[in-house]
């Protein structure tokens, strides 16, 4: 499992092992300030990061930053 969330310290506390930091609390996987196409591109980048995290061996709690 990969946890995509904005408040990483909470994810660490509850024990997620693969963590991908996201954009903001009300829109973790978007950004309403962007044009729709750019926003979708941002989302695609984050999802790809999550898939990368799933495909990576980890030996403890790991945050996948940019």
């Amino acid at each position, binding site marked *: *499992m*990969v*946890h*995509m*969330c*904005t*408040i990483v*310290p*909470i*994810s660490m*506390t*509850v*024990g*997620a*092992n*693969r963590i991908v930091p*996201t954009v*903001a*609390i*009300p*829109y*973790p*996987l*978007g950004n*309403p300030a962007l044009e729709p196409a750019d*926003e*979708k591109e941002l*989302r*695609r980048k*984050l*999802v790809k990061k*999550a*898939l990368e995290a*799933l*495909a*990576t*061996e*980890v*030996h*403890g709690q*790991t945050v996948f930053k940019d």
Partner: protein
Amino acid sequence: MSKRIVHYINQFFAGIGGEEKADHKPEKRDGVVGPGMGLQKELGDAAQIVGTVICGDSYFNENLESCSATVLDMIKSYNPDIVVVGPGFNAGRYGMACGTVAKLVDENLGLPVVGGLYEENPGLEIYKRYGFFVHTANNAGGMRTAVPDMAKIVKKLAAGEEVTEGYVQKGLRVNYFAKDRGSKRAVDMLLKKIGGQEFETEYPMPAFDRVLPQPAVKDITKARIALVSSGGPVPKGNPDHIESSSASKYGKYSLKDITDFTAENGETAHGGYDPVYANLDLDRVLPVDVIKEMVAAGEIGSLHDYWYSTVGNGTAVSNAKKFANAIAQDLKADNVDCVILTST
């Protein structure tokens, strides 16, 4: 002269507004605001709340670094002797803000901090060592007991007395002289254990719920993936009536006919953040549009036919565990290899 208190609260308790004002920037006001009134009453002449620092919960958590510096400066400007945070009950972001303020004050000003949080508030676990936090109820209905409990500790601190009880253990070690040396105490304990007698450990282990990381997915282009969220994404109309806070259930919804969320087919049931952006485009919480495209393009093997959703807003950990067990069974039965869990 009575001791000077600065009180940190969020935008809600300051009466500024709810979620729509959660991006409120830090501000300071002289004297008491909101729950500070009740607190001042309890304190009487023992201490005086000279200023209140207010910040929106989302703003604080999303701008942690800059906001921390501003809030610390505002607190410092009142030249306090003691800092009070909250009570934050079971509000996740407020709890994190209260805890962060406690840490800032402890580390930078060396002043005592008094706060109040519900036992399952994640902010408590992370920041309890930086202040005297009393246990509160999980919602603001517990204000009546939280304020006197906090006031009791503030009064002791104001009087220069040592505070030894009435707060959540900070987890700090305090030196003392024991009658017997360590090796003798350990052997005594072992003998009692072997003899089947009661014994009390000197170092209780914390009850962390940890799982070992799963091995990496070998090939995402062959993997079956599932989507789960605690951000409350539900079909338009919230058909299962998942509660906006303290959820008692989760929902399971078909992804068959959805390739893209719009304002017409999805919304959030979550009551703990501003829902405007999620209600316009739920892909911002659950990335169905992108995932479906990637499945179609062969970048992901396949997608489980349903998404699972609950509201992680003041939801009991025991309930969350139940939901997770049930969802995991479902996913295993469908040979799902991996899960993307999104949280707001």
